[in-house]
């Protein structure tokens, strides 16, 4: 095996050990524990008392919008970090370039604001 591939041996062993550990923990548990299925054991857990109502609930759509906007601005931040590291070498050109980028995204935010998407209710 070449030197290049040998470096990946560590990765393979590490991955194999992880899989083995999980398999052991779950497998030994399955072998050792008793199986006495009882209907009440499969009820939804609701702090120890009898569950009331169905197990599924609906989330309000406002959470989706905020998650979506978060992802967009998080990705924007991810692009800004490396730029910030090398800004001194890029001088005014880099500043203007990133300003344009941020302005375009800010315009998107402005659009979302005017569309009423940022209302919490």
């Amino acid at each position, binding site marked *: 095996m070449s030197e290049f591939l040998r470096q990946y041996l560590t990765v393979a062993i590490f991955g194999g050990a992880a899989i083995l550990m999980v398999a052991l923990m779950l497998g030994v548990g399955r072998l050792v524990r008793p199986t006495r299925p009882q209907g009440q054991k499969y009820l939804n857990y609701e702090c120890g008392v009898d569950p009331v109502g169905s197990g599924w609930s609906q989330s309000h759509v406002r959470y989706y919008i905020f998650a979506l906007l978060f992802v967009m601005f998080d990705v924007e931040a991810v692009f800004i970090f490396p730029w910030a590291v090398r800004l001194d*070498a*890029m001088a005014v*050109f*880099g500043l203007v370039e990133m300003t344009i980028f941020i302005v375009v995204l800010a*315009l998107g935010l402005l*659009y979302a604001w005017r569309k009423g998407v940022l209302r919490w209710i």
Partner: protein
Amino acid sequence: MIAAVAQVQPGQPLQLPHVDWVTIGPAGIFFVGGLAMLLAGVFLRRRVPRGLWSGTTVVIAVLALWPAFHLWHQIASGGARTAIADAVVVDGFSIFIDVVIISAVVMAALLTDGYLRRENLEGTEFYVLMLFSASGGMLMASANDLIVVFLGLEILSIALYTLAGFQQRREGSQEAAIKYFVLGAFSSAFFLYGIALVYGSTGSTNLGVIADFLRTNSLTNGLLLGGFALLIVGLGFKVAAVPFHMWTPDVYQGSPTPATAFMAAVAKAAGFAALLRLFVSTFNTYRLDWQPIVWALAVLSLLVGSVLAVVQTDVKRMLAYSSIAHAGYVLVGFQTASNRGVAGALFYLFAYAFMIVGSFAVVTLVSGRGDTDASLDAFRGLSSRRPALAFVFTIFLLAQTGVPLTSGFLAKFYVISAAVEAHSYALAIIAMIAAVIAAFFYLRLIVVMYMAAPAAEGEEAAPTARIPIAVGAGMSLTIAVGFTLVVGFLPASVFDFARHATLLKL
């Protein structure tokens, strides 16, 4: 530029490229115009005059012709060149594709006005998405670097995914958007993998550097060929070439019809622009390797597109399969890898854009509120309800068949004559056979429009409701039919334009 960064010490200024804004003028105007429209739409929410947004989009599109014109003259006097750190190329080819895309945007924008009002989807979003998508397409056409091609491809595609799902009430539209998005994301991943393999085998993503490397070195492993295959898969999806065409009928049928008109013209033009530049120009030294693949793709697209369209009963699906066949014709021109072939392919894309936007414009008008009914029955007896509409649709269908005195005939002629000149006789014969097969379903639609048989027992009578034709749609149809007929009679100037729209010699 990446090499420059690696050598610089912290604190030392980088060698930054000079940005010649005119070279990305058309795409830039579309992009800035789209942003401006987006904000205007959201700040001017009270009563706006009818057709304001449609008119603004047309103005932005026509404005983009000014830098295109300026660059064409620059190229005519100074020759084609690269710009912005060799990332963007300025040659006749990219200007031609810009003009094709601008024409398609003008026609689609005019068409959309009445449609949005009819479907209660008013607002600027549709136009903004069209503008952004078109700007991505234009960037793809002028790219000189594989990463810039990918950038353009993504800008083009993502806006199109949203356009496909614009009509949220209709289930078909949601289905089209999901299918297009999932399959498009996969094909972009294939394209990116292709870029990685080409980079791995040649050492650069810049098309000029790649072409130089391939001219001076001979590669022995198959890495580059793997890259070719994956790039063809990625772009073949975009242009609906045959084994990668599965999304086309469902997406064309489900999307709002003006969006279908737009994507049929623009996505194909941009996709073929990238294909032609990458393979005919950059990978020219390896053309014996990729020409057989494209030959197979062309034959399959021609035959599968034509044959499957014969059995369709929904006109939108039929037009979708027929545009797969049209992609086959452009692939015939692509396969020749000659200047005649590229000129023929460009002429075909230009003529096809008008024909297909016109056809889908007619379908938009006939399918009625809700955009649900575009079956053959909806067109029954159209000649008595709206004779002008039926006549115009007849012209588009005859043009798509390749009947003389329409631009479609000349488009097929140029492409097939390029194939004959390059001694691909089998391909030329198959293209002509496919044209004959395709004639069946185009003529069938014309017959249905003009000779509606009286309703038999138990069948529904032909629809008799009056079809409202909005002013914008009328203008769009006039432009499309005008171009198709005028170029059918006098093709010389457009063909000269296509012949002078040469790729930069890399």
